[in-house]
């Protein structure tokens, strides 16, 4: 059935930016322009005063299925995604069993289809069981539908294994994603190392633990020619090294998370486990460097690292509580805050959420071009609301932004020409 999105401010980064109608039919974008001729029977969505954007693409989520469905399932995760305006999500392989073989990949794809909400793209493991020892069957994973490979939270420490993975991945033109953390340097740490960790008596993880692995990975990307994507960079050093690598023409891309450009290690005070994630919240200097990296294009994409954990897990002591926060349902307003602050133009903010991440993994998403999949997010840029975790679609509530008054809200989300989220209905 046709959908006519009327009179919104359409932003298709690099292609179109202005008031226009968008016409959708049979799951695809049919036309974008002023005063379109609308077929009879088309559903009209009045988007006057709203932004009409290519659906957001999140390169980094943890949907916990199979294995940890009490934290999140693919169904609940996808519901959280579309509520946050994300029409495509890339799921990390640290499930149980890990997504290191095609059966798990197929299972995840099937669950994604059954949920019928966001497009679910699995990321396959680099090594069997995420153990960092033997390569997983990357060819099979790719063929089954994995869009990238990563051992995520268990970074490949052995540089030879990482080199081989990057080389092997060349045959499948697949991005190799690394969570950059030297596990020896960060051993036992649970927050950024610095004066706050000293005051709180908590074991720290120095920013150098991230930097040395970013440096290693860039060197290996140069050696192998692989497509390297750096997950959630959080330090000034990482931003500097990625900038330098890009200036030399290496195939290196990077993502940053909203929490890393919004809050600092100060949020940990009071042993707030909702401020515990990995990489940890850093210092103001790092926050500024991440913002600058987003501004000057060093950092390609904004990703959430959506990492749901059950309330009782976050009620453990700070050192024992698991790393991670949910992010899908707060990413939009936190990104729009950068627009308000003058760091990003509105168009480049949309680019970081949609078009650029799609390019990083080579997904045919993140655009409103004629013929593209009709994944569209309609946003009220000015609507103010208070973050209330009890209203999240995610199964988990672990966010440091509870109670924050934020601006910018998803009104409607469309995936493949089907309305999958409507704020008015959620509020009703």
């Amino acid at each position, binding site marked *: 059935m046709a959908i006519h999105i009327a009179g919104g401010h359409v932003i298709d980064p690099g292609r179109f930016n202005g008031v226009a109608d968008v016409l959708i039919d049979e799951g695809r974008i049919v036309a974008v322009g002023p005063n379109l001729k609308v077929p009879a029977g088309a559903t009209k969505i009045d988007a006057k005063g709203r932004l009409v954007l290519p659906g957001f693409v999140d390169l980094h989520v943890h949907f916990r299925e199979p294995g940890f469905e009490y934290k999140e399932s693919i169904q609940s995760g996808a519901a959280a995604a579309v509520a946050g305006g994300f029409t495509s999500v890339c799921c990390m392989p640290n499930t149980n069993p890990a997504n290191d073989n095609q059966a798990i990949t197929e299972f995840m794809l099937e669950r994604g289809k059954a949920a019928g909400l966001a497009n679910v793209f699995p990321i396959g493991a680099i090594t069997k069981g995420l153990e960092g020892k033997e390569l997983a069957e990357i060819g099979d994973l790719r063929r089954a539908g994995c869009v990238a490979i990563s051992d995520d939270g268990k970074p490949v420490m052995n540089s030879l294994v990482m080199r081989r993975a990057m080389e092997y991945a060349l045959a499948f033109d697949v991005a190799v994603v690394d969570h950059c953390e030297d596990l020896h340097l960060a051993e036992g740490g649970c927050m950024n190392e610095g004066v706050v960790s*000293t005051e709180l008596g908590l074991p720290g993880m120095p920013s150098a633990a991230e930097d040395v692995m970013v440096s290693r990975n860039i060197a290996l990307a140069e050696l192998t020619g692989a497509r390297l994507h750096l997950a959630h960079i959080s330090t000034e050093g990482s931003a500097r090294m990625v900038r330098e690598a890009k200036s030399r023409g290496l195939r290196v891309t990077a993502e940053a998370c909203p929490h890393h450009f919004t809050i600092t290690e100060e949020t940990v005070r009071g042993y707030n486990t909702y401020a515990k994630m990995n990489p940890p919240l850093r210092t103001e200097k790092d926050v500024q460097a991440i913002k600058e990296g987003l501004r000057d294009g060093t950092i390609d994409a904004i990703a959430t690292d959506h990492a749901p954990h059950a309330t009782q897990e976050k*009620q453990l*002591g700070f050192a024992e509580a698991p790393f991670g926060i949910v992010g899908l349902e707060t990413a939009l307003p936190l990104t729009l805050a950068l627009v308000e602050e003058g760091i990003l133009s509105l168009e480049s903010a949309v680019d970081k959420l949609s078009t650029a991440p799609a390019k990083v993994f080579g997904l045919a998403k993140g655009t409103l071009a004629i013929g593209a999949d009709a994944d569209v997010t309609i946003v009220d840029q000015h609507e103010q609301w208070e973050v209330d975790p009890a209203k999240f679609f995610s199964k988990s509530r672990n966010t440091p932004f509870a109670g924050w008054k934020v601006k910018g809200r998803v009104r409607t989300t469309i995936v493949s020409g089907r309305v999958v989220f409507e704020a008015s209905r959620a509020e009703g």
Partner: protein
Amino acid sequence: MSLKRKDLLSLAPLSVDEIKLILETADSFKEVTGREIKKVPALRGRTVVNLFFEPSTRTRTSFELAAKRLSADVINFSPSSSSVVKGETLLDTARNIEAMQADIIVLRHPSAGAAQALARGVKSAVINAGDGWHEHPTQGLLDLYTIRERGLSFEGLKVAIVGDVAHSRVARSNIYALVKLGAEVRVVGPPTMIPAGVEKLGVRVYYHLDEALRDVQVIMMLRLQLERQGKALFPTIREYARLYGLTSERVKLADPKVIVMHPGPINRGVEIAPEVADSLSSVILDQVANGVAVRMGILYLMSGAN
């Protein structure tokens, strides 16, 4: 005047007046501990629970004695660390204890922040008896009491804290309190044991013991956790003892009336030479004795019995 706090979790937020109140309250209980009948009825009918998630002999015994000398009922509860691993949250354990009408919970826990988390969740008063590397406020207070008992005034007092500052809750509590009271605090140890940014807490950092000891009136030795050898913090106990061990020769670099402190248990011949530990400068056993009086004062103030 009374302590207007439900809990005693750390010395960092305490005012100078609050610290002084605790020390003065301890004075009257010090007198009690010197009597033949070492018992007063101040906390009769109240229940104190010692909840120790870490092995501890002296702190637990000290709290137990303090509570008993105040006529409180005392329960010692030492959950095996496996019950933590089993997934019972600290809060659940504590709520169980609270349900038995504990007035005061004394908590020792291996995780920094545990006391704070507990205090948020229960109505009982919580006293932190050491949380990870964070704080050990009653040890800090008994150290202050011992310094004061020797007639030293805190303003301008030169204090050297020696050893593994990074992993020491005793060091943190003393740093917070001494800096607040106007002392000049030096921390000294190998750079691997000096925590990041510690100078921002108002202390001076030294890597050489001889230099740090010059003219100090108080030397606070920290216990070396012998099991940390092999974690690349120091090469050998032998070298550590040579560089950071307190010998009689080194004591001579300090003020002639210097006092030597140690929270115990001591490693003789490692961080402290036996002849120093047993010398007239040593107040190590005074610290232990004062610990009971100071904890009586704290229990009394926290119970709201005044």
